[in-house]
Structures are given as structure tokens and as C-alpha cells.
């Protein structure tokens, strides 16, 4: 029996909507974290940023927070 294309589209649409809803919730959860927790994440982001784009010269003063 051939699949119902309308049902197939609706099924995929529901999945995509669910993914986007979860994504929004994730960002909101991150935004609602206590500042102290956000700083811990920030330090990890700083490490990642320096790994992706290492310092090119002495004028680059980017420094991972030492706290």
C-alpha cells in the first residue's frame, strides 16, 4: 500500500516543530541559569574560542579567565 503523502508531510512537520521547540527551550534554560553557572560555561567557551582561533600575535590579549 502506498504511503499517504499528506500524512508523511504532517509527520515530518511535527518532528521539525518538536526539534525547534526543544531548541528554543534549551536556549531559554541556558539564559535562566544563575550567573555563576553561566560564567563556568563562559570559561569553557573561551577555551573553545582560543582553540578554534589561536592567538596570532602579542597584541591579541584574549585570556581565558583564571578564577
Amino acid at each position, binding site marked *: 500500500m502506498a504511503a499517504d503523502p499528506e500524512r508523511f508531510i504532517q509527520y515530518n512537520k511535527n518532528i521539525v516543530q518538536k526539534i525547534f521547540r526543544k531548541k*528554543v527551550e534549551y*536556549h*531559554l534554560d*541556558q*539564559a535562566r*541559569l544563575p*550567573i*555563576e553557572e*553561566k*560564567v563556568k*560555561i*563562559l570559561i569553557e*567557551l*573561551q577555551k*573553545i*574560542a582560543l582553540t578554534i582561533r589561536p592567538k596570532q600575535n602579542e*597584541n591579541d*590579549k*584574549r*585570556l581565558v*579567565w*583564571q*578564577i
Partner: protein
Amino acid sequence: MEKTIQMIVQAQNAGLFSSYAIGGGIAALFYIEPVATFDLDIFIILPESSSPLISLSPIYSWFSDRGYKPSQEQIVIEGIAVQFIPVYNDLVRDGVLDAAEKKYGNTPTRVLKPEYLITLMLQTYRSKDKERLSKFLQETTIDYPLLDSILLKYNLKKVFETFKEQYYGR
């Protein structure tokens, strides 16, 4: 960061500046999800002076005397690169004077309110400002009457409307 804030408050108590507020990316961190940034921007109101020239030398000397050596335009205080930025226009001055009282750990501090940060982003309006603006609109509670009054005062209401149209189609 708590020790850094405590040192900044000590500097204020020593009379190096009359008021301060955390601005930039770290102020944003108080309201939206974490985004990579390296500097702790501290907007300061310097004491009244007879000279028209602004000098940060007393601040650099004060911290240097306490073992925090300035490097270019920043001072590493307790492991964090801090930039002291004298208020450079009326909007930033208003933001510092009307800053939100927050706590980091057990230490009280002052942070620019989201409404001022939004207006500042509209004023500078770089691509990173636009990206951060959309996060503010989605992730934090905004006092819209306050935002409206600031936008009106600084003639940025139209820029805000244009931004919303471009990003949200309304």
C-alpha cells in the same frame, strides 16, 4: 569574578570613580545565554575634574600598586581582563546611573539594565549587536515602557522598529 568585583568596589570606595556598572558581553551574560567574550567591561563615571582631558592613569596606578599590572588598555584583576571605560555619551551615563543592583555570589554589584543594553546595541548596531539583540528579545524580560522612554529620548525608536521588521517581519 567575585574577587574581581570586590576590587572594583574597593577602587570606587577609594574615589577613583564615582559610579560604575558592568556593561558589554558580561552584562549581557546576566540576562541571556552565555556567548563567548573575554573582557569584563566596566563603565565608570569619573570624578569631576577641571581638566577637559580624561585620564585613566590614577586607576591604572592604583591597581598596579596592588599587583595588578595594566597591559595595553586592560588590567588583569584576579584572573579576569578588565577594561575601564569612562562613560562616553549621555546614554551610557544614564545606564550607569540607573544600573540594576545584582549579586555575584555574595557580592553586590551593578549591571546595566537590559533596556539600556538594547538601546546601546541599537546605537552601535554592528552585526554582533544585532545577533545579541535578537537573543535579548527572546530570552529575557524587558520593561517595555522603560525601553520605549529610552528609545524616544535617544531617537532610536525607528532603528528598533526596523530591526524588528528585518528579524521578525513585524
